[in-house]
């Protein structure tokens, strides 16, 4: 039963555990990067609004 669960977890995670889990690191770095850009873009937008005033 436990063994069955383990294989299920392994197959669910799939790509995330391949080759030393580097895809996991890649995903996390990408999320940080996307968040950072969203934040900078929102500041940019706020200044544009101020400039229009």
């Amino acid at each position: 039963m436990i063994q069955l669960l383990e294989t299920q977890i392994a197959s669910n995670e799939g790509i995330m555990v391949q080759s030393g889990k580097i895809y996991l690191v890649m995903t996390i770095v990408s999320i940080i990067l996307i968040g950072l850009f969203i934040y900078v873009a929102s500041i940019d937008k706020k200044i544009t609004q101020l400039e229009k005033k």
Partner: protein
Amino acid sequence: MLRAKWWKVLSFVLLLYTCTYGFLVKVPRLDDRMKESIRNFFFHVPMWFGMMILLFVSLVYAIKYLKSGDLVHDVYSFAFASMGLVFGTLGIITGAVWANYQWGSPWVGDPKQNGAAIALLIYFAYFVLRGSLLDIEKRARLSAVYNIFSFFMLFPTLWILPRLTESLHPGGQGSDGNPGINGKDMSSNMRTVFYPAVIGWTLLGVWISTIRIRIQLLQLKKDGLL
């Protein structure tokens, strides 16, 4: 140009590419001392490239200010210098972390490490100088002159002296050519990530600088100085 969108999107695309393909691209193992840590090359080195490019732009605006006396040029010069120093600081911190695991200690007194620290300290004095002057015209003029001096101090500290002695960094005495110019020292796989990374990080630096410029210009307008 300050508000144009295409290069901001380009910066995002290039950095997303760097942060994904940078982990996947096949890197040379050589004698297996670096292992996967050579991927730091896509993150640590572009900090320095970005710093040099932003500081050069800052230098150009410092000269422009001295020619024109236009405060807008001073605002540009200051914003690019600040962002350049953010990159430089991140470069020295990431370098210390990498050195800790690669060379055994965060600070090994490598000529390039020492040179970079001196270059950064010279630039930090630029901010001390600015902060100590209250008169806006005087601050702009003196800091523009000092900016020119500190940029040219990058030549001995980063580009010449570390290459005249033995160094743990690439390009020290005994290694072939100048790695800053001779890109053939890098595997072609790594180059496909490295150059986009440099452009991406630099554009992000330019973007953040323009935000600072726009805030500063709004402030000056509000104070009736423009």
